[in-house]
């Protein structure tokens, strides 16, 4: 039987242990500005579901903590993801999910760049260009079908 899936048999990896957020050593000041770090951003996106498998982006190693770069001083985040197969037509959907999740989770002042890992996708430049054109992203998110697909991937799982 021919499978309709882009990648019918993805490799599943162990999920990383969830670490408690390290608490500041100084007496806790609830008004202190806590910088946003790599771990916090990874926690926002690790559970996003793959558009075609019942696994998270972390389990498929589409994203790793190391693939998150953050510069809190400059309000800048870059997430580099690795599609499971080179011709993955789901790459733009995955990228859109990452962008929407970060848009909804991070303070508005943040600038976010999303890209596929160099060499991991056949149409890398085209995917990167589309994911970072905010007008295309805005238009995509006004498309109810696409938005449903994204919301499906972002829905919390209760396992």
């Amino acid at each position, binding site marked *: 039987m021919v499978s309709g899936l882009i990648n019918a048999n993805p490799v599943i990896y162990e999920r990383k242990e969830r670490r408690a957020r390290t608490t500041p050593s100084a007496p806790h000041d609830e008004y202190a500005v806590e910088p946003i770090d790599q771990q916090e951003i990874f926690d926002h996106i690790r559970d996003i579901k793959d558009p075609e498998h019942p696994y998270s982006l972390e389990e498929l190693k589409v994203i790793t903590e190391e693939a998150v770069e953050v510069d809190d001083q400059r309000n800048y985040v870059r997430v580099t993801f690795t599609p499971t197969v080179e011709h993955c037509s789901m790459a733009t959907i995955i990228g859109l999910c990452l962008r929407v999740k970060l848009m909804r989770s991070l303070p*508005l*002042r943040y*600038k976010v760049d999303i890209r596929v890992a160099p060499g991991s996708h056949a149409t890398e430049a085209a995917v990167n*260009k589309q994911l970072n*054109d*905010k*007008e*295309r992203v*805005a*238009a995509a998110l*006004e498309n109810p079908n696409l938005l449903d697909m994204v919301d499906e991937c972002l829905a919390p799982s209760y396992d």
Partner: protein
Amino acid sequence: MTELKEIQRLEGHTDRVWSLDWNPATGHAGIPLVFASCSGDKTVRIWEQNLSTRLWACKAVLEETHTRTVRSCAWSPSGKLLATASFDATTAIWENIGGDFECVSTLEGHENEVKSVCWNASGTLLATCSRDKSVWIWEVLPGNEFECVSVLQGHAQDVKMVKWHPTEDILFSCSYDNTVKVWADEGDSDDWQCVQSLGEPNNGHTSTVWAISFNAGGDKMVTCSDDLTLKVWETENKGMQSGGGFAPWRHLCTLTGYHDRTIFSVHWSREGIFASGAADNSIRLFVDDNESQVDGPLYKLLLKKEKAHDMDINSVQWSPGEKPILASASDDGTIKVWELIP
């Protein structure tokens, strides 16, 4: 010391403000300055200056016509009509009837998101462009009728902006395909053709070209891009040969290193200052550098305004009034009005 002074911060839109346009028939002869702004909140707002307080207030909200983001707006040269382009694939024409704005026409035809709209200098032609890669030219007929006279195919991708030359019926379009294309009606019979394409081989941009603006003389234009540069182009005789043919544009200079994220907007003032607004939240102003070498005019930074907004700046536009007033629209949902203090 030259300063860009914030006069007012205007709130009202409930989503990012994509674009704004000053009404060209305002700002002189005692007529208060007016501009329109449009937003991801699907509305258009009309802002008018109060002549005694000098401050702007929202005079009208144009809503319940577009069903998706309103991406761009443009006043006709007479200031009587306002055209609005939307992601809902339509362009609406609004008429100011005794202070009320009424939608008098809806232009349909594009397959998907309309991204920009522009009137020619005489107000007889309208151009629109879309993600469907096409540019449409509409003839303005009596009774608020609009007839499509040409559908221009040539861009390989999404067309981001259309702009008419300030005096000639020559149309310019810039695109996600990294090029600027020049369109002219050479046969005098609605036979619009692409007469020039400015791309990488002509020292053009290496990523999406977002906007284009002309100097007052119409012999120079400036473009801005996702490649983080601004480019100035020039032509002979406003782009028309004395015999009636088309005069090509050539690259004059590239301004690099002034913005560190996508440059979404550029606008050239009548006084010769061009402003740029970018995703780095900043505004830059450039002027002719008279002291530059004999090779010709180059441009120098006049002023930089960091943190002009809290988020991306999508549009910067100089007012038509006597004072050098600039308005900027941002993802932060606000519009700011600035005065350039020399």
